[in-house]
């Protein structure tokens, strides 16, 4: 009987996935052909964007709203994971001497690369998501080599860091109102500073959030 239910569930899942695949295929086919005007519009407005890298200009200025929602999705994913299960205590590990010294060497190097990626986002490939992912990767690396980072999500300062990217984004967007402009429009002379402001906090948030996702679960209340 349970076998029958198991098969039924699998069949249902297969139908759902197949339906989604058909829907996706249909959406892609019905998309309008790529319009070269869009790239031209971006190129024309680059001087107003505050950065010289078109991808960053689109992500954080022209289509900032999409990126804001992406940050919110990341936070929701973490909340979802927390609501599923408590964290499982990792068994304490004594790092081997080689791993220990290797991580001590790598940590400052990776931090430096995180800073570089964040700074490079303004004029070259890079930016908050890549830098944040690298920061999270550093956490994963330290965790796997036996370090136990004091990630206690019941503490409010950690939760504040997790929300900081979203809050910084909203503040930068609301800055438009202060200057009598629309929500999400940056004054030209402040655009560069605002984008750096958002990206710095977003890097921190993305890094901590992704690393906490890796720990799979919420911290048990003390």
């Amino acid at each position, binding site marked *: 009987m349970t076998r029958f239910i198991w098969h039924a569930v699998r069949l249902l899942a297969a139908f759902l996935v197949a339906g989604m695949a058909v829907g996706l295929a249909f959406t892609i086919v019905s998309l309008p052909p790529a319009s070269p005007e869009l790239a031209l519009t971006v190129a024309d407005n680059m001087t107003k964007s505050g950065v010289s890298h078109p*991808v960053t200009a689109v992500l954080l200025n022209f289509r900032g709203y999409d990126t804001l929602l992406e940050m919110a999705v990341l936070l929701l994913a973490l909340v979802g994971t927390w609501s599923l299960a408590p964290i*499982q205590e990792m068994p304490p590990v004594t790092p081997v001497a080689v791993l220990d010294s290797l991580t001590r060497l790598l940590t400052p190097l990776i931090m430096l690369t995180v800073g570089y*990626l964040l700074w490079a986002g303004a004029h070259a*490939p*890079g*930016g908050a*998501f*890549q830098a944040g*992912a*690298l920061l*999270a*990767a550093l956490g*994963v690396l330290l965790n796997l080599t036996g370090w136990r980072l004091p990630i206690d999500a019941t503490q409010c300062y950690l939760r504040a860091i997790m929300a900081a990217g979203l809050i910084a984004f909203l503040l930068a967007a609301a800055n438009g109102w202060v200057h009598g402009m629309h929500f999400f429009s940056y004054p030209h002379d402040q655009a560069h500073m605002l984008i750096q402001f958002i990206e710095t906090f977003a890097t921190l948030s993305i890094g901590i959030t*992704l690393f906490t*996702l*890796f*720990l*799979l679960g919420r911290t048990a209340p003390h």
Partner: protein
Amino acid sequence: METLTALTLAFDVLLALLLLLTAGFALFGRNLFRAIVLYIAFGLLLALVWIRLDAPDIALAEIAIGAGLTGALLLSAWARLERSDDNQAADESSQSGQDQTRTPH
């Protein structure tokens, strides 16, 4: 110049085939661990595709998030599944052990 275009074309075709292969094996393999490793390999190959398409930003994100962190997440979920399976197996064996001690009575 023509040999260069032929070479890049061959590289692109090889890349596409490898992508399909790793995706197929990751989806239809029965071994979860192998599927995760293939998924990570798939992500790295996809990053190469993004570079071929002149999208280094997406390639960076693909390597860091798609292959690296999602791979690590999947592996830690896999380790947790294995652990819970082990616990279940241990529970069952301890129960059957109790049964065995009971049978002589």
